């Protein structure tokens, strides 16, 4: 499946991703370079003390020198620097840990997105122009019209307040219980994934309808294969291709959405860190989080390209 050309392609993409990540961190770094001093300021600091503090954090050096130090540390050691607020805290391990939490949440959200999306899309296309189709199609529009925080809010209301007797009350993120207690994962993951499930459902439905008219499906039918086999093995496989094209934007959507969802459910992932570090003016963390996001988006796009190869044998790089 992976020819030499594919491997070269992967190599090129990895190089491109690395460059994109560097570019994004550079832009964010340069964009907010004057601001880190803010994080250090408080009501008790005056004049010279403040200048000395800037010096301590190397924030008084020329911008290009700071930038060069930053890039060298990032490239040679993967070092994103130290927090300005929580002294001595290394950013790289911090954001990597938080990335793990966010990936877990995003992964579950993707299960909802793709699982529900494909299911709805396939069912709607198989039952085209029946009430099932209309109900599912309308649900899709409703789904992607509901902001994820609205979905989350209603879930909290229903499961946290109105069904308090059953569920034991509002959900909060409990450290250590994360992997063991799926109950805390389903709600945020559903709220995060459902809007995009609606988009996947619409796309799947449309491309399924196109695929079932193709000759090879007719041939399969003529051979007397069972309908389920035709739908799953032949039609769905090809109908997946357009779905895969939106996985890139989807990944961005889930990353973006996780900022809101993590804040709502109090999940200490990257999104929570992002919002908090902006408020704290802890700009090196902002840069670190952004770098992680850029890497995630690049990886998602790479996975999308590779998925083409797996799904559609005709595509070669």
């Amino acid at each position, binding site marked *: 499946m992976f020819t030499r050309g594919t491997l070269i392609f992967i190599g090129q993409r990895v190089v491109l991703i690395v460059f994109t990540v560097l570019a994004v961190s550079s832009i964010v770094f340069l*964009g907010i370079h004057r601001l880190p001093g803010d994080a250090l300021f408080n009501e008790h600091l005056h004049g010279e003390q403040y200048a000395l503090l800037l010096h301590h954090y190397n924030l008084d050096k020329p911008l290009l020198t700071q930038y060069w130090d930053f890039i060298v540390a990032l490239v040679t050691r993967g070092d994103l620097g130290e927090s300005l607020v929580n002294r001595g805290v290394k950013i790289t391990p911090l954001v990597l840990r938080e990335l793990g939490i966010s990936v877990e949440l995003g992964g579950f959200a993707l299960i909802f997105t793709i699982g529900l999306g494909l299911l709805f899309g396939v069912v709607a296309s198989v039952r085209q122009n029946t009430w099932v189709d209309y109900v599912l199609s309308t649900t899709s529009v409703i789904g992607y019209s509901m902001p994820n925080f609205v979905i989350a809010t209603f879930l909290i209301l229903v499961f946290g307040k109105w069904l308090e007797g059953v569920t034991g009350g509002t959900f909060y993120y409990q450290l250590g219980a994360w992997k063991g207690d799926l109950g805390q994962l389903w709600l945020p993951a559903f709220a995060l994934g459902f809007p995009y499930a609606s988009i996947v459902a619409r796309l799947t439905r449309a491309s399924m309808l196109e695929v079932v008219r193709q000759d090879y499906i007719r041939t399969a039918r003529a051979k007397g294969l069972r309908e389920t086999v035709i739908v799953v093995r032949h039609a769905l496989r090809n109908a997946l291709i357009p779905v895969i094209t939106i996985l890139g934007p989807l990944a961005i959507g889930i990353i973006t959405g996780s900022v809101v969802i993590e804040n709502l459910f109090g999940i200490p992932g990257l999104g929570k860190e992002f919002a908090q570090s902006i408020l704290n003016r802890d700009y090196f963390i902002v840069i670190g989080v952004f770098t992680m996001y850029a890497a995630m988006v690049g990886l998602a796009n790479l996975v999308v390209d590779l998925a083409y190869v797996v799904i559609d044998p005709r595509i070669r790089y």
Partner: protein
Amino acid sequence: MAVTVRVDAVSEPVQASLWSDAWRRLRRNRLALAAAIYLILLVGVAIVAIFYTPYRMSATGIAPDYATPSLAHWLGADNLGRDQLSRLMIGAQISLIVGVGTQLLVLAVGVPIGLLAGYYRGWLDQVVTFVINVFYGVPDLLVALILVFLLGPSLANIIIAIVVTRWMDMARLVRGQTLALREREFIEAGRASGAKPMKMLFGHIMPNALGPIIVQATFGVPSAILFEAFLSFLGAGVQQPTPSWGSMAKDGVDAIQFAPHMVIAPAIVLSLTLMAFNFLGDGLRDALDPRSRR
């Protein structure tokens, strides 16, 4: 949301019948019609709110804090004892201004860029395409969030932040349309007869791409409203005491255990509005572009 409009769907030079056909098809789409009626009502409410709200939306303590809905306050009061209904009405203004305002700016930015890139191709097109792809590779909301924090939260800055992060949808669409249209006979003919490029672009190409542009702009409105709600929800919204549905929802979430009515009303109105724009957009696309019909 990216709307894919297939290039082969671009129609012949504009004919009157196209628009009347579209109108006929739109009228038959009951969901789209209902959505349009809802939106007209919403615009009505926003206009009425300029002159009249049941209470002054910034008046604090006119009801007990967190008061539940009653005859005097149909939607109850918020954490500062302000009338929720009045604030929801003003919030409609904010949402519509953000939604429509950003799309007008997106049109002003995206259409010319798309036209020029598609028409001249070459290095210009390559640069534009590259920039568009870079913007697509960045988490837009997060960039907007940083922008708003840097510029300071205000209605204008929110609109700017949204336009900066969302202009490329329109540019990409118009570029695609232009690329396809410039190969068509009537454009070729115009070019051969020495028409000025500006006249070709805005006099011939743009009118023929108008259908997809309208559809794209219609879908752009709810995405901008959603964006504003997100920003407000994360605390980067319009200046107090001006309410936005997003910031009202945020205040409501803070009190969700104690006063759930505070979050329910803005959440429902926000969702309904986004839904209405999406249904209307679907309807418009089906009407203006029959071949892409499901």
